[in-house]
């Protein structure tokens, strides 16, 4: 598996190949915690301003502008404030945060400390999926090192500012990547999402103002303080600042984690050249899910020769979304009905059961898929699935429902022949997956 930067100097990946890059010693030798020193000399408002200028957008999938999110935290609230790192990485196709936590945990910690200073918070939590136990162990060591060196604890670097950060484990639930479900889980409850508004920035953990950001969002913060918001933004585009980590998997020769500047041109070059092209010479490109399982699937015709730029706007224009940047590449051996069934089974399993459209709808969709791929598909099944998706999309309590509907809607739109083959012949004429 490759881990490297293309088209830019490694920034997020600056330390991942260094020996002992996860230790405080190497982190400080390579400029670590210098941004914190700078930040402690800045006013909270100035820090938020730099983050706004940077055009950093949340790296967990939704892409909400980070500086704006931070500015929603009320300054005059008498309640304690919390900074929470969403390290629940569970989006199928996404595996970037894992390497940041494994090889450069101090970047995330430094980003969280700076955020806490800017928001007036004294407590942070890193909510990590339970399966990433080895990463929690690595982060616990890193946090202890930071505490020992005075970057955490009382009176950080003599500034009078107190902050401590703790790890917290999940126990297997995709929904806990949704920020309000994460907070329910962090309070010891089932991972059910909460009504918004109030947004977590106003009423989050323990009904107190809380900021939840993705690992890669926090690791960007020290870079922004070091370079200045404008310079960081200019690495990418005006609306999509900085660089972005892409996880790429499936039928490519060199899967891995790649750091690309936002606005990288183009998607075809990335897959066919940078990632070595298709895994097997006999099969060409059939489909790509560019941003993790929750975005629209694209067919080869939407990508090849289309100069799709890799940023938020470019992928929307091309008919999909950036999401978490978890790109899954499929060759012509794949049957899109089967792959979409696989993802629908995922959403059925991960639906928290709180609201009816998502809980019942995903179950019915799996039943219809199972009927089709058992050879009993009916002509009206396609419309039935679209109607079900229509009753989930925008009508479920949280975005998990939308995420379940979009892959199906786009698969039917972009790969009608795969569905027709099953309905008409009771089998796929190609593809075994």
């Amino acid at each position, binding site marked *: 598996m490759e881990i490297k930067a293309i088209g830019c100097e490694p920034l997020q990946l600056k330390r991942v190949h260094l020996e002992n890059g996860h230790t405080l010693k190497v982190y400080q030798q390579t400029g670590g915690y210098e941004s914190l020193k700078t930040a402690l000399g800045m006013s909270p408002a100035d820090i938020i301003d730099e983050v706004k200028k940077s055009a950093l957008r949340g790296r967990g999938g939704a892409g909400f502008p980070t500086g704006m999110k931070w500015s929603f935290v009320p300054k005059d609230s008498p309640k304690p404030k919390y900074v929470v790192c969403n390290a629940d990485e569970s989006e199928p196709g996404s595996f970037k945060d894992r390497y940041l936590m494994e090889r450069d945990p101090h970047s995330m910690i430094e980003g969280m400390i700076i955020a806490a200073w800017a928001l007036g918070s004294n407590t942070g939590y890193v909510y990590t999926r339970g399966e990433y136990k080895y990463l929690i162990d690595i982060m616990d060591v890193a946090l202890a090192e930071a505490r020992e060196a005075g970057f955490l604890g009382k009176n950080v670097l003599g500034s009078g500012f107190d902050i401590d950060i703790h790890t917290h484990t999940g126990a297997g639930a995709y929904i806990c990547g949704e920020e309000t479900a994460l907070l329910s889980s962090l309070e010891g409850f089932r991972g059910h999402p909460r009504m918004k508004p109030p947004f977590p920035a106003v009423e989050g953990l323990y009904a107190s103002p809380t900021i939840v950001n993705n690992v890669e969002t926090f690791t960007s913060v020290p870079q922004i303080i070091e370079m200045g918001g404008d310079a960081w933004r200019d690495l990418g585009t005006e609306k999509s600042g900085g660089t972005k980590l892409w996880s790429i998997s499936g039928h490519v020769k060199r899967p891995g984690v790649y750091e690309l500047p936002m606005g990288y041109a183009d998607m075809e070059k990335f897959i066919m050249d940078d990632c070595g092209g298709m895994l097997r010479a006999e099969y060409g490109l059939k489909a790509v899910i560019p941003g993790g*399982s929750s975005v629209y699937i694209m067919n080869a015709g939407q990508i090849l020769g289309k100069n799709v730029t890799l940023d938020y706007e470019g992928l929307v224009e091309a008919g999909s979304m950036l999401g978490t940047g978890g790109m899954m590449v499929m060759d012509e051996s794949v049957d899109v009905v089967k792959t979409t069934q696989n993802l629908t089974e995922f959403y059925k399993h991960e639906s928290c059961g709180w609201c009816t459209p998502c809980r019942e709808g995903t179950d019915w969709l799996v039943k219809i898929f199972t009927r089709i791929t058992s050879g009993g598909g009916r002509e009206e099944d396609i419309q039935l699935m679209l109607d079900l998706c229509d009753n989930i999309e925008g009508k479920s309590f949280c975005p998990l429902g939308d995420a379940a509907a979009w892959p199906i809607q786009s698969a039917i739109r972009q790969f009608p022949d795969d569905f027709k083959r099953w309905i008409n012949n009771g089998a796929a004429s190609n593809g075994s997956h």
Partner: protein
Amino acid sequence: MAAATPTSYTDQIVYTDEIADFSPEIIAEMESHLAKYPGDRKRSALIPLLMLVQRERGWIDNPGVNFLAHFLDLEVTDVWETATFYSMLNMRPVGRHHIQICKTLSCRIMGEPEITAHICSKLGIHPGETTGDSKFTVSLVECLGSCGTAPMMQIGFDYHEDLTTEKVDQILGSLD
């Protein structure tokens, strides 16, 4: 050699008032988790402590749940309510080695079906079952964040990636 496949999620639970006993070292470890949260927010430690109870007792059994209810000043039903939501918390005993094979898209198209068939035929069980000697349980699970090194499985907490059938033989052979 397969043990009977339980028919319901919680059918192995024997309800009892018995309260599990833990050593002072384990209690101290639990206290260290509790110390992370505000004093009036003990329930926040529930999921980390459920993971710890499972580590010590192999699964989430009723005495373990009763202990956590006492330890965290919760009702027993509060503990069950949370515990039954999360897929890593086992509501029935599992084998000494819990083999969790990722079945989601990237693993699926990169060879998961062959890996699953190989492991199941080698152990003589189906996914969801435990071998008669309680050594292995095989489960199919959703994405474990290892798509670039597919296909993969997690045994206990250990990641095993870029799997081939030969590699699987080697890994299973090394476990006692």
